[in-house]
């Protein structure tokens, strides 16, 4: 066996960004393969396809109700569908599954130690895994967002929809919804990554957050701000009524909502890095 210095990339005397990038890339591709092609990914595909099922039924049977007969009503119909089914269900649980499994899944499989036994900073591991989760969730759920919107509009009002999306408000709406989905993946992703690192059974905190996000419309304005969904709803292109019991609060402007969400995400990722630095693995052996 030759000496280590011949084999290993040079030992960095100071932060070695090019080595970190190389390692992040390696971790990213390993994780992407797992996210898209493992048995666990079947659930994510099913979840991503979930909103397309009722929309396909609507496209085929074209119901005779106002929501679907009036083109101007469709944007409101989609807003409700997006908020209730896509954002607060598919994206939420999809991110929970993807990001909590980044570490928890490998602990269950007893394969996390292979990363821990590589010459890689553990914080770099968090970044590589988080980016892979982010890319996976963004590709799947942004795809769901776009396809479901097109699936609602095009079969019902083809020519109006083509005009709507090519020159009118449609494209703006589409881009805004896709951006909200991306931000949701960023925010929920960071939350579920850190939960997967701290909690042995992450389902409970996930359900607590789910409940908190759902009752957000009932909360007083100050408490509304301690949530992800409040900032995301503030960005919706079509304002929605939240019912007679809703506590009305000023939406947070985009210039504050977006950087705020990204800042909180960065803080959560730093906490994840700190946590993983101290993490031990024994899988209950010895």
């Amino acid at each position, binding site marked *: 066996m*030759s000496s280590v210095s011949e084999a290993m990339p040079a030992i960095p005397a100071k932060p070695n960004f090019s080595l970190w990038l190389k390692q992040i890339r390696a971790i990213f591709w390993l994780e992407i393969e797992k996210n898209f092609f493992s048995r666990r990914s079947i659930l994510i595909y099913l979840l991503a396809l979930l909103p397309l099922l009722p929309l396909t039924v609507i496209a085929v049977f074209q119901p005779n109700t106002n929501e679907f007969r009036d083109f101007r009503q469709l944007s409101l119909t989609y807003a409700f569908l997006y908020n209730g089914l896509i954002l607060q269900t598919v994206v939420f649980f999809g991110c929970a599954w993807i990001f909590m499994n980044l570490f928890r899944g490998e602990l269950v499989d*007893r394969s996390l130690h292979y990363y821990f036994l590589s010459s890689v900073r553990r914080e770099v591991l968090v970044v590589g895994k988080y980016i892979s989760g982010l890319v996976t969730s963004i590709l799947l759920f942004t795809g769901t967002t776009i396809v479901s919107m097109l699936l609602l509009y095009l079969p019902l009002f083809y020519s109006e929809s083509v005009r709507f999306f090519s020159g009118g408000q449609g494209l703006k709406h589409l881009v805004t919804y896709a951006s909200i989905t991306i931000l949701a993946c960023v925010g929920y992703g960071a939350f579920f990554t850190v939960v997967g690192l701290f909690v042995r059974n992450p389902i409970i905190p996930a359900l607590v957050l789910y409940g908190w996000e759902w009752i957000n419309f009932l909360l007083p304005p100050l408490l509304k701000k301690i949530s992800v969904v409040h900032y995301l709803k503030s960005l919706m292109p079509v304002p929605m009524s939240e019912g007679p019991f809703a506590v009305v609060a000023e939406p947070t402007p985009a210039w504050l909502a977006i950087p705020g969400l990204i800042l909180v995400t960065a803080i959560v990722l730093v906490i994840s890095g700190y946590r993983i630095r101290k993490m031990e693995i024994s899988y209950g052996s*010895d």
Partner: protein
Amino acid sequence: MVAENQFITFDNVSKFYGEILGVNRVNLQIAPGITSLVGPNGAGKSTLMNLMTGLLRPTRGSIKVLGIRTDQPEQLFRAVGYCTQFDSFPRGVTGREFITSFLLVHGFNKKRAQELCDVALAHVNLLEAADRKVAAYSKGMRQRIRLAQSIAHEPKVLILDEPLNGLDPMVRAETIALFRKFASEGLHLIISSHILHEVDMMSDRVVLLNNGYIVAEGNIHGVRDEMEEHPMQILIRCDNPSKLAAYVFEHDHVVEARLHEDRRGLFIRTRDADRFYLLLNRVVAEGGINVESIAPVDDDLSAVYQYLIGTTGGSA
């Protein structure tokens, strides 16, 4: 003055799992060569290895591997390879993918990773099976691919938790030869095993553990010599064992002399083996007795293990 970066050093290390003791007050300095950790299940062998590699953090004390702290994986695993006992793998990978993917995580470029992977696979004779899924491997093959993964980045320190488990006798012999080769190249090998005769055969020194404590460490014969409460047993084959018994029994370091069943040998128990051998030389020189052979009966790891830990250890 000992150069810190030549040794693996445990400085008063303890590890508790809540209130349960893992290891306690471990002070060790491990030099290059093969060091075997020996002890019954739960003695703390894997805990010691996991502490050495930063998978566990000591509750007290500090550990350095070639001068590197164990909480710096980015530095530590440039020098260390660890083949754990966990028989688990990332899902769906082939043997080759398993090794190259973690070489890429180390920071090697693709070409170099493939070269190192081939070398490691050749070391464990798995080149032919490299492109098969690990899930389809036999237990012995899985053990070998994990060994290949741990040596692929050419570490200076190899930590191997029960590396011979599941290997057939031929592969065991080849693997031990590989370990000896690495040791002769100046590597540190820390190996845990419960197969005492194999440990005896391959180790330069042993660390005996029981209930989380180190009960003995060092060269096995040195350890045995220091066990004064257990006099050394020696079998002397000769033509007149009765006469020899009478002769040696006059000396106070000989505590027992017993005839062999076939009456052509004598078992001696002595507190000072060196003095006994001098005495025997004198007997032979004076010509009264013809000695055919002299063999220590309990100067091996099995005996030391039995005296210190109280069981016979593993033998299969």
